[in-house]
């Protein structure tokens, strides 16, 4: 007696769906693999920050998961084969069994988790709090994947993944990395979307997510511009990454090692001004005044009192510098890449013109940041390139800059005494040394032979080949031994101009200074001229000073470096180089406007836009603009939707029906809007029986098309008959008349 209940074949599993919070039905095998892949990618992004044992544990867990997934596939295959035979009850019990096998026992997982946490706690002191936190995050992220039982577990996993992504941004922020993180975000969200539209392909879902994010970008950028930037709520553990770049101490071979790196050190933007000559671009970073016979190191300041004194002295000389010398000032902006050190770079002598907070000017014309530079930092400088500096030398400073351990390099000492005897004039003496280096067969190389005990004697008289630090060290030592106050300076020389070089007068672009531009030079103090910069490298390799690395040096660097694309190749392949420069320019804009966007800039932006105003006005403007932008977004989407709706034209059959209605209206039979089609047909039958047959047929077809589930072919057929019926109606109407 199944007269009244419609029987359809339904899988029994459908009934399980209302208990969706218990079983994650929709996480298909494909989705599970995608999730796994996504996890691997997320971990890969942050892998550099994890210690190797943690990486080992994580990869072990991931492999384990992959194995579990693989096993599940085998089981589902056999299940599919059996499913024709097995009836529903056995089927469901099979399913339960499968889940039991597919899942790792919670006790085992718990033990694993506890062991991992213990290991983390033990190593916490060593690696620092931040790294420990990140490791804990990754560890829980991987472990969570073992127990996806309910939908909420899946959600948690996705959110954890997003958090892993965002915390990876603590360590790196450059354009390429941000782009990678963004694309991973898209993949993560696409997997989440896949859960809700499991039937569409991953590619379409990725497209949808990109569309969603694209629409969000508008509001996000407005938020970025106007949302108030808050100061940190509490102290957070800082990243303890490897320091890069120059260091406090320099041994002769150090700079040569540094030049193997092709990493960016900083960028400088001269705006519309002419970029100085290459040989003028001595970016000063560290002044090394102490020499212990092996290495040069920074002079430690004795205490607050003296530093204050020196500061005031330095300021005095700088004010003097800026005021009286007729030297043209050079304004520029420097954007330093994170180096996890404190050194800032400047073309000495310089003063900070913009935001002075967090930047200290030292007495030796270098600048130091008050905090380790863990993300890109920018500052404005004004330099007076040819102005002399420190015309006065304090007694203490003179002592320090003449000191050298007696007997450390006896041959150089005797050579210095001979020089002192031969050349009375200080500058002539320095010139003589340079001449000596130039005349004798010295070699400039990235791979200098090793020196015993960093002996300068050995370099100067025996091996006779070295890099800039060798020459600068030997030269400074010679000067000190011959009674001239001298010191070693490290920094960068030159840089690569990236931009439009065609317009010589007002170029657009910036300088990029890489680690391989690292350099060391000397300064001697001459009465009446102050500290004079003397670069002994000029005596051995003039090309380095005037235009940068020679191709021999580049080739040498390529041989030492095991990067996939060496600098030499990059610079010699035109299109690769163009691409590299393009990307560098993009990255610069990114660093400048996104990474370096500060509260100050935000404030300036408002000032530029609206003029100076009270804080509450600003707040109102922010609030109003946020609200307006949100409503704009909503309206925009609404309009898009409306347009789409309008674009869909009425189907042919709908038009026929409406035409018929207008024809009837002409006859005086009008259809009230609320009336159903059938009721109206009845009304027509009563009012004009001649039209009834034709119109009733039309109405029936219309109803069928409206409310019946039909295939496309059937629809077309009925639409065709409707056309005929409409013509019939017209025919009868004509006959009536």
């Amino acid at each position, binding site marked *: 007696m199944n007269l009244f209940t419609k029987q359809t074949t339904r899988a029994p599993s459908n*009934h399980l769906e209302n208990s969706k919070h218990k079983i994650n039905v929709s996480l298909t095998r494909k989705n599970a693999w995608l999730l796994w892949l996504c996890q691997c990618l997320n971990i890969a992004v942050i892998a550099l920050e994890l210690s190797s044992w943690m990486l080992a544990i994580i990869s072990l867990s991931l492999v384990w998961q992959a194995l579990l997934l693989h096993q599940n596939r085998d089981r589902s295959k056999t299940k599919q084969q059996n499913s024709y035979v097995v009836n529903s009850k056995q089927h469901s019990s099979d399913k339960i069994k499968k889940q039991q096998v597919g899942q790792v026992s919670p006790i085992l997982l718990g033990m694993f988790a506890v062991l991992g946490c213990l290991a983390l706690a033990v190593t916490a002191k060593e690696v620092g709090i931040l790294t420990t936190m990140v490791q804990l995050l990754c560890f829980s992220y991987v472990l969570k994947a073992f127990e996806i039982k309910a939908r909420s577990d899946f959600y948690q996993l996705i959110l954890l993944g997003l*958090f892993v992504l965002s915390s990876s941004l603590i360590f790196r922020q450059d354009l390429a990395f941000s782009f990678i993180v963004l694309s991973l975000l898209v993949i993560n969200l696409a997997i989440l979307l896949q859960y809700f539209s499991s039937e569409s392909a991953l590619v379409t879902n990725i497209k949808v997510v990109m569309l969603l994010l694209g629409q*969000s970008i508008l509001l996000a950028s407005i938020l970025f511009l106007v949302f108030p930037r808050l100061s940190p709520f509490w102290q957070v553990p800082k990243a303890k990454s490897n320091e890069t770049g120059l260091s406090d101490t320099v041994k002769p071979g150090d700079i040569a090692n540094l030049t193997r790196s092709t990493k960016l050190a900083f960028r400088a933007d001269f705006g519309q001004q002419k970029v100085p000559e290459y040989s003028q671009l001595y970016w000063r970073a560290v002044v090394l005044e102490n020499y212990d016979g092996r290495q040069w190191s920074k002079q430690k300041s004795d205490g607050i009192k003296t530093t204050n004194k020196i500061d005031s002295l330095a300021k005095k000389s700088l004010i003097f510098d800026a005021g009286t010398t007729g030297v043209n000032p050079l304004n520029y902006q420097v954007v330093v890449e994170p180096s996890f050190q404190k050194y800032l770079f400047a073309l000495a002598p310089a003063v900070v013109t913009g935001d002075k907070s967090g930047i200290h000017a030292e007495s030796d014309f270098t600048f130091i940041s008050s905090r380790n530079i863990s993300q890109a930092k920018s500052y404005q400088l004004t330099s007076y390139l040819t102005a002399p500096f420190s015309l006065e030398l304090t007694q203490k400073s003179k002592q320090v800059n003449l000191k050298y351990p007696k007997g450390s390099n006896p041959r150089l000492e005797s050579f210095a005494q001979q020089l002192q005897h031969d050349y009375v004039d200080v500058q002539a003496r320095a010139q003589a040394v340079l001449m000596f280096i130039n005349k004798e067969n010295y070699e400039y190389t990235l791979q200098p032979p090793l020196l015993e005990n960093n002996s300068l004697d050995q370099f100067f008289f025996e091996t006779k080949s070295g890099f800039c630090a060798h020459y600068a060290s030997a030269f400074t030592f010679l000067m000190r031994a011959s009674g001239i106050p001298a010191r070693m300076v490290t920094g960068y020389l030159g840089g690569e101009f990236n931009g439009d070089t065609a317009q010589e007068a007002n170029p657009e672009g910036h300088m990029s200074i890489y680690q391989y531009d690292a350099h060391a030079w000397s300064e001697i103090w001459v009465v009446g001229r102050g500290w004079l910069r003397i670069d002994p490298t000029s005596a051995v390799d003039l090309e380095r000073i005037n235009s940068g690395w020679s191709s021999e040096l580049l080739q040498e660097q390529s041989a030492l470096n095991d990067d996939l694309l060496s600098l030499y190749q990059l610079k010699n392949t035109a299109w690769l180089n163009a691409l590299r420069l393009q990307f560098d320019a993009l990255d610069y804009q990114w660093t400048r406007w996104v990474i370096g966007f500060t509260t100050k800039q935000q404030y300036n932006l408002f000032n530029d836009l609206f003029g100076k105003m009270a804080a509450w006005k600003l707040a109102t403007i922010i609030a109003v603009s946020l609200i307006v932008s949100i409503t704009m977004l909503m309206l925009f989407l609404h309009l898009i939707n409306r347009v789409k709706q309008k674009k869909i034209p009425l189907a042919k059959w709908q038009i026929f029906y409406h035409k018929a209605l207008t024809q009837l209206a002409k006859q005086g039979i009008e259809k009230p809007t609320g009336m159903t089609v059938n009721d109206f047909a009845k009304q027509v039958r009563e009012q004009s029986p001649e039209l009834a047959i034709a119109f009733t047929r039309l109405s029936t077809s219309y109803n069928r098309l409206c409310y019946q589930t039909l295939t496309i072919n059937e629809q077309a057929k009925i639409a065709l008959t409707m056309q005929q019926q409409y013509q019939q109606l017209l025919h009868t109407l004509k006959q009536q008349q």
Partner: protein
Amino acid sequence: MTVFSLPKLFKRLIQKNVENWLTRRIPCKEEHQLNSRNIMIYPTRFGLSYLAFVALVFLLGTNYQNNIILLLSYLLASLFISVMLHSFYNFSQLRFYSKAQQRQGYAGDELFFPIQISANKAHYDINLHFSDKTINSSCERVAQCQQGSHEVNLIYKSSTRGSHALGRVTIFSEYSLGLFKSKTILDFGHYAIIYPKPISLNRGQYQLSSQSDEQSIDSYQTSSIEGIDDFSELKSFVRGESRARTAWKQLAKGQGHYSKHYQSSQGQSKWLILQEMPGNDVEIQLSYLSFLVNELTATNQPFGIVLSAEAHNSSTNISPSMGFAHQQACLTALALYR
């Protein structure tokens, strides 16, 4: 006491107000089109935790003074809003048409309420179920609703006879990232008439009587008893016919599957009387009647039904007749009997 009863009263008041508001806002119709009038959209629990997560990322960015992380948090926050709009547009413009407002069936049977969904574009993750939680209907999911029309059957199953108003139908979607639940509660005016479940009567358990005051009392016995009904012909078996009427002899001989047809003598209308059914429980008695009604209809015998003691009460007593409509009327009377 008042302290405890007050919230209850309050709750009831709110519920009533909500219902009133709903009937004004979404009145009962055969067909509904989703638009901003009848769609409710609110964040799910995941949506709220997502917001908390975004706040956490914002904190991370602020504490590290990291613009990229801040930008990411803004992007995620804006995504929340765009997802809301996408959720809404995924859900709106859908049309729901209920093909049957009323369904009948026996207690314990599954009743199907077909609902036709028509879409102008592809919609995702459409879920339907009856709003009334006590109905305990399963949630029907349409993972992807392509352009065109689809049919979904809502299932209703009840073990108690009677006429049940099924209330509204909840339709919801968590599409785009599960952050928002777009929901609507449509009223199609669904109701179900549940007949008593037929319980078969053994032969001789009940003697069918004609109404004593009008016609001579005839006894009813199940059709296998000879003598009462005159065997008229053998017809080839049609699916759905009662097996009780299978001509087993012919089948066993291999002559084919036939069923026996009887012709009861006309004019001898039988009356099915509730009080005369065996047992004390009214429900069981009704179940027996339900069985008999089906049997008599299947064998094409006219019968009447007497539920209340008062004679000629038209609402509970149905005068003898035959056919499908009569069967329906009788079963409905059984279902509605109080």
